[in-house]
């Protein structure tokens, strides 16, 4: 992985100190390089000036002796002028004549008097002073002039180890200081960023909790030392939480009110459905009262009363099927399918329709599915299909099981499901029940499917009709009972 990408993936609390350390390292390298370069230049300037002064002194002092070729005088001058306790001292000084014959050296054993100067030694010297960092020596030479004529040359080798030692010490000091500073700044960066990020972390924790449904206020206890900015953010978040909680409360209240209104509408609808035959029944009762002695009239009136009562029974039965609270927590069995078939026979029979269950289930228990909600869902779907289908047609209920769960399908050959009805099943759920009585059955199916964690799907039944399917995932018994 690219180191920069890796750095980018670290948390701010680590990334910032690391970046501080990296920046400090870069700054240290640049700074150290500049300091050492400047130090080297200063040292070389100093050394050049020192060498120049020393060479000038030597050249001026030995000049008369070089003219007289007086080796002793030159030697005496060299030994007397040699600094004994200097940090940078002349390690070796050689005075030659114009022909490079050694007149005297302060180390005569190395440079014998009146011998030709060692060419290798002579090659160490250049026009300007030269500092050799390997041998830690500096080489400088100066011509000795007398009456504008070069009569000899002074060669001096300086021990520059103290200067180079100083450079090493400066470098060590720079490295140690910069490491110390980098660590210190990184630590400060760590604590500062930690302090800066802490409010964000608290906010992040609350946001994540809110996303999973646990919307909570940020209390002062959580961050007692919040700075002004953090307090402002927390205040804004708390205002948001307050507004959301208020909205939730409002929605709850509205839902309850809407439920009550729905109940009113249902009651009103039922009253309307019962009121129609009831009017006829009352008329029939009056007719019986007045003309009950006439057999024909009596039989017709009784038949009318029976039909009116049957209509009321249908309405009550439909209400019972639809809204009766399921108190039983028993599991869905083969018998429930028989019950469904029996319960729906009257409705389907009035339209000369037939419910076909395919294939005929061989198992008596369906994955511990709760009997109540499944029965209600199937009946609602079949009644819906029945209402939409023409007389005399067949409605097919399929039920199958697999590793994933249970698959239920209700097929009809109707004109197709209206869009708003389809939306009730598949669109994101709206709070509250739908307006009016239409779609109430499907809304109940949707509620049941959501409680079971099932998926509803609507697709056309080729060549004509609709297939509504429920896929109920295999779940633990505990969850199923909870749904029931």
């Amino acid at each position, binding site marked *: 992985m690219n180191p920069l990408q890796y750095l980018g993936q670290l948390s701010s609390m680590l990334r910032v100190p690391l970046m501080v350390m990296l920046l400090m390292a870069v700054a240290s390298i640049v700074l150290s390089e500049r300091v050492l370069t400047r130090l080297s230049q200063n040292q070389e300037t100093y050394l050049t000036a020192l060498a120049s002064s020393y060479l000038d002194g030597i050249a001026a002092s030995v000049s008369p002796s070089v003219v007289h070729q007086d080796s*002793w005088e030159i030697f005496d001058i060299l030994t007397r002028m040699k600094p004994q306790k200097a940090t940078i001292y002349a390690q070796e000084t050689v005075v030659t004549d114009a022909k490079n014959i050694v007149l005297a050296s302060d180390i*005569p*054993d190395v440079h014998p008097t009146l011998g030709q100067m060692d060419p290798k030694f002579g090659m160490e010297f250049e026009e300007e002073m030269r500092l050799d960092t390997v041998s830690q020596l500096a080489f400088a030479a100066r011509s000795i002039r007398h009456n504008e004529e070069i009569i000899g040359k002074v060669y001096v080798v300086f021990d520059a180890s103290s200067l180079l030692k100083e450079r090493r010490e400066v470098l060590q000091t720079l490295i140690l200081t910069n490491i110390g500073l980098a660590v210190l700044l990184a630590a400060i960066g760590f604590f500062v960023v930690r302090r800066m990020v802490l409010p964000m972390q608290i906010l992040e924790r609350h946001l994540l909790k809110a996303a999973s449904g646990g919307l909570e206020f940020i209390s002062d206890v959580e961050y007692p030392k919040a700075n002004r900015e953090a307090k402002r953010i927390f205040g804004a978040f708390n205002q948001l939480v307050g507004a959301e909680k208020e909205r939730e409360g409002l929605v709850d209240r509205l839902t309850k009110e809407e439920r009550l209104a729905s109940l009113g509408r249902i009651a009103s609808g039922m009253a309307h459905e019962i009121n129609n035959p009831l009017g006829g029944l009352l008329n029939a009762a009056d007719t019986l009262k007045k003309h009950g002695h006439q057999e024909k009239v009596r039989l017709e009136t009784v038949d009318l009363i029976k039909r009116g009562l049957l209509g009321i029974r249908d309405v009550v039965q439909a209400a019972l099927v639809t809204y009766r609270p399921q108190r039983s927590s028993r599991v869905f069995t083969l018998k429930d399918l028989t019950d469904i078939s029996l319960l729906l026979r009257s409705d389907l029979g009035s339209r000369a329709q037939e419910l076909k269950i395919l294939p005929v289930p061989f198992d008596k228990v369906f994955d511990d599915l709760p009997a109540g909600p499944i029965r209600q869902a199937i009946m609602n779907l079949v009644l819906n299909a029945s209402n939409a289908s023409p007389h005399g047609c067949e409605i097919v209920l399929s039920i199958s099981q697999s590793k994933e769960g249970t698959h239920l399908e209700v097929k009809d050959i109707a004109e197709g499901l209206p869009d708003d009805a389809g939306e009730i099943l598949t669109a994101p759920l709206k709070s509250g029940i739908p307006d009016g009585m239409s779609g109430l059955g499907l809304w109940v199916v949707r509620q049941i499917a959501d409680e079971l964690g099932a998926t509803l799907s609507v697709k056309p039944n080729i060549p004509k009709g609709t297939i509504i399917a429920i896929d109920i995932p295999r779940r633990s018994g505990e969850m199923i009972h909870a749904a029931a």
Partner: protein
Amino acid sequence: MTSSNKITLRTRRTFMLSSAMFLLATSNALSQSQTSTTIRFGLTPVFLNDDIHLLSVIKNYLESATGYSVELVTRRTYQEVTSLLVSGQIDAAWICGYPFVKFQNELDLLAVPEWNGEPLYQSYLITKFDREASKLADLKGDIHAFSDPDSNSGYLVTKALLQENGLSAESFFKKTLFTYSHRNVIRAVASGLVQSGSVDGYVWEVIREIDPDLVAGTKIVRKSDWFGFPPIAVSKRFAQTKKVNALKLAFLSSSEAEAGRAMLDYLRLTGFVNAKPALYDSVKRNVDRLGALL
């Protein structure tokens, strides 16, 4: 008149004027020297005349013993001190036997130091301590250090020895040089600046005691015969003056006074004695032998 003649004439006039001024200065100096209450005592590198403490010891003793204030006069070369002595600008001087012989007609002996109980010393031929050399012939081709052209032990003896062997310093040695001090001869040899040197045996032995590291760098190749120790001399003209007599008495009685003994101890001498000029006959023989070569 040509330009060269003009120059010659001018040079002569300048010389005459200079000579007149020198004589005037000399006569002034003479009168001042002999009438003042200060003894001007000259010192040469026949001993360690660069030892400041030793000079103060000598000065203190001579002042206490003579009752005069003493001014010690040092110069770089024997010749300079000898000139001052002969010209009467100083009252007395500790010079070498060779200048004494050279100016025997102008100088008298005041006192002669005794070293190891004898007023005698030797000249040493020395070389570097680690060199395989045990005789004069081994030093052939050396760069050789002499002490002073007016030194007996540091020049004359070696010149005479070479002459005895039918040699000359110029041909025998690659090069010779003067260091104008016996200590410097030892330094030059010990450092390797030169390969050999002629040195005062007394000075070499004394330095061996007080600065053994320096002498350890050298070794003796040859010791000469014994010669009269470098004397304290006085101009014959002032040999009997009160100051000079006081000075003579001070040297001769130095071993009797505590300050005198301190001086003698410092100099590693046993005392000062009266001596005849004949003590320096051996030096004179060398001078005579070398004659025009000097």
